[in-house]
């Protein structure tokens, strides 16, 4: 029955989708910045010798990875008011995305740091560098390059995950699709347009990831085996 597919209705709702697209884009950017902050903190804790820092970070990462984002989102959405913290849905959504993605970002950065060979660290030690000098001058600049592609991969996951915020009625892309579907009983028009918008974001990020990889390959760094 898709012969009734109405492009005209989509055009009518275009401003709403434009608004949703922009909302998804900027709330993803803010959440990703939050995820980086959370991830770097967790990773720094995880790499310490002190168990008092290491263990909480590990537990946090495991708990986040073993539970669904939707349950985490509801945990904050229904739980925060209970603690007397009343926040707009949008803030709760951004908080949930940052806390969730942060755990994955922490693992990506950790893998990047651990991928730097022992010999690099030893070269730093042998030339008399302190721990922080070795980190700053030798390890982190190399780890940074290794982590860019997987971090962009995580950004793609985050953009898609942000669709769940529509379930706590944040106005974003998926919500726009839902509105069109329920106002006009046109789910096909609503959700196909939504999907197309996400695909545009996906291909944008994918192109960015591919070109970053090419850029990193062109820079003659070559991992020494």
């Amino acid at each position, binding site marked *: *029955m898709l012969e009734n597919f109405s492009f005209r209705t989509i055009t009518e709702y275009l401003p709403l989708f434009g608004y949703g697209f922009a909302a998804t884009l900027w709330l993803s950017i803010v959440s990703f910045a939050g995820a980086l902050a959370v991830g770097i903190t967790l990773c720094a804790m995880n790499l310490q010798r002190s168990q008092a820092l290491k263990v909480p970070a590990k537990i946090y990462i495991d708990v986040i*990875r073993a539970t669904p*984002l939707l349950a985490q989102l509801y945990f904050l959405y*229904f739980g925060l008011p209970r603690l007397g913290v009343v926040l707009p849905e949008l803030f709760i959504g951004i908080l949930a995305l940052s806390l969730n993605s942060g755990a994955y970002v922490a693992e990506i950065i950790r893998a990047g740091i651990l991928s730097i060979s022992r010999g690099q660290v030893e070269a730093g030690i042998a030339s008399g560098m302190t721990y922080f000098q070795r980190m700053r001058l030798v390890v982190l600049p190399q780890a940074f390059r290794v982590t860019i592609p997987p971090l962009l991969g995580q950004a793609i996951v985050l953009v898609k995950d*942000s*669709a769940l915020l529509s379930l706590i009625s944040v106005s974003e892309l998926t919500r726009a*699709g839902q509105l069109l579907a329920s106002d006009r009983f046109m789910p096909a028009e609503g959700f*196909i347009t939504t999907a197309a918008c996400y695909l545009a974001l996906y291909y944008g990020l994918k192109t960015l990831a591919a070109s970053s990889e090419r850029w990193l390959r062109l820079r003659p760094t070559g991992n020494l085996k």
Partner: protein
Amino acid sequence: MIWQQLQSLIGSYPLALRGLAMTIALSLLSLILGTLIGFFLGVLRTKGNRLIIRVIGAWVDLIRGTPFLVQIFLIFFILPELGIELDAFTAGIIALTNLAACFICEIVAAGIRSVPTGQVEAALASGLSQWHRMRQVVLPQAMRVALPPLVGQYVLLIKDSSVVSAIGLTDLTRVGWLVVQRVPNGLLVFAIVGAGYFVVCYPLILLARRLEKNMNAAHGEVQL
């Protein structure tokens, strides 16, 4: 107050069990179907003809590029418009199986590509048929590479099954949502829901880590 809430929570345990059973049924069924289809597509993706490779690639991209929530809505609301009547459970299974198949297809294809061409050439040289080359030489080696991400994918699948609560299926997450309307303690209710997922997912995460470690040890390069 807390005591009353606890009592009320304990009272809703049959509902919680039903939710857990639903989550497990959804995950398990789509896991099995998704693995079978994913393997088949994965082999086709590396060995099929060019058109098939293109079509699979485009489909996988489409699924990877859109949120799972949107996929569920599309399947649940649009298939009926095409004249295919389906209930929420079937829609959930279709969506999850499709998602799993797409990711597993990529994992299997990457595993197959990781097998050195020398292995295939050796099998060719000893006169094995294409089926036997795949079955005896390539797939066993590809599996070793594919297994850790495959287990990781199962964890994602179980977690993604929570999203089908959006079309009204009473799974674990939906039960939490229902209970929290009566017992207004979101922290407690969703901590319990989270614990339900944790006991299923965490052992799998540990398994994936272990497999990965074993694989790295077996294929370990010499670290200079």
